[in-house]
């Protein structure tokens, strides 16, 4: 199912962030967090290079953890919507 985010308000834009982030897939992680969550994300994102996964993660550490994990792994955090616990992550291209 494709999920289309609302248009960003000007104050929400950051650098080259896209106005609209269309997700190829959605994943509701519920309360999962920490190492368990990033292992699931690793598996899912490896299977969809270049595409966007919308993740809903309600773990209280996710807002710190997912951006940090994206910075380390090369996946692009295209958008974060704290009010819905949502993260739009564009999977990096597969490494040869």
């Amino acid at each position, binding site marked *: 199912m494709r999920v289309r985010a609302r248009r960003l308000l000007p104050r929400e834009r950051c650098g080259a962030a896209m106005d609209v982030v269309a997700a190829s897939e959605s994943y509701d992680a519920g309360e999962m*967090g*920490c*190492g368990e969550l990033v292992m699931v994300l690793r598996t899912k994102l490896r299977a969809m290079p270049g595409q966007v996964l919308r993740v809903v993660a309600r773990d209280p*550490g*996710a807002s710190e953890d997912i951006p*940090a*994990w994206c910075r380390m792994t090369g996946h692009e955090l295209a958008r974060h919507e704290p009010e819905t616990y949502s993260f739009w992550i564009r999977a990096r291209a597969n490494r040869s």
Partner: protein
Amino acid sequence: MPGKFVVSISVAKNDTDKATVGFVIANAAVASDRETVVFLSIEGTRLSQRGYADDVHEEGFAPLQELMTNFAAAGGTIYVCSPCFKKRGLDEENLVSGAKIVGGAKLVEFMGEGIPSISY
């Protein structure tokens, strides 16, 4: 001399001596201009709650609450292990100053390569 430093504390009132010394060392690090993180895990996550440490005062040391307040005021950061925090049913709305709930990836990113750490 800039740099990072991590102090890992896994105890609270089950070992107030260790918890206190952990924050003493953390204060030394932040006072030495290190970008310092205290990582609270396991029982140590209880220290993240306002009021919890108010009655902890080890002989020969400053009260734990004072050590924690000084650490945050000096720019220190406290990472609180998310699954440990949830397991104990602690309150996200009652965090001490400087504390944030994180998962393991946040700590891994901070530590990067070759960052010194000490565990209590």
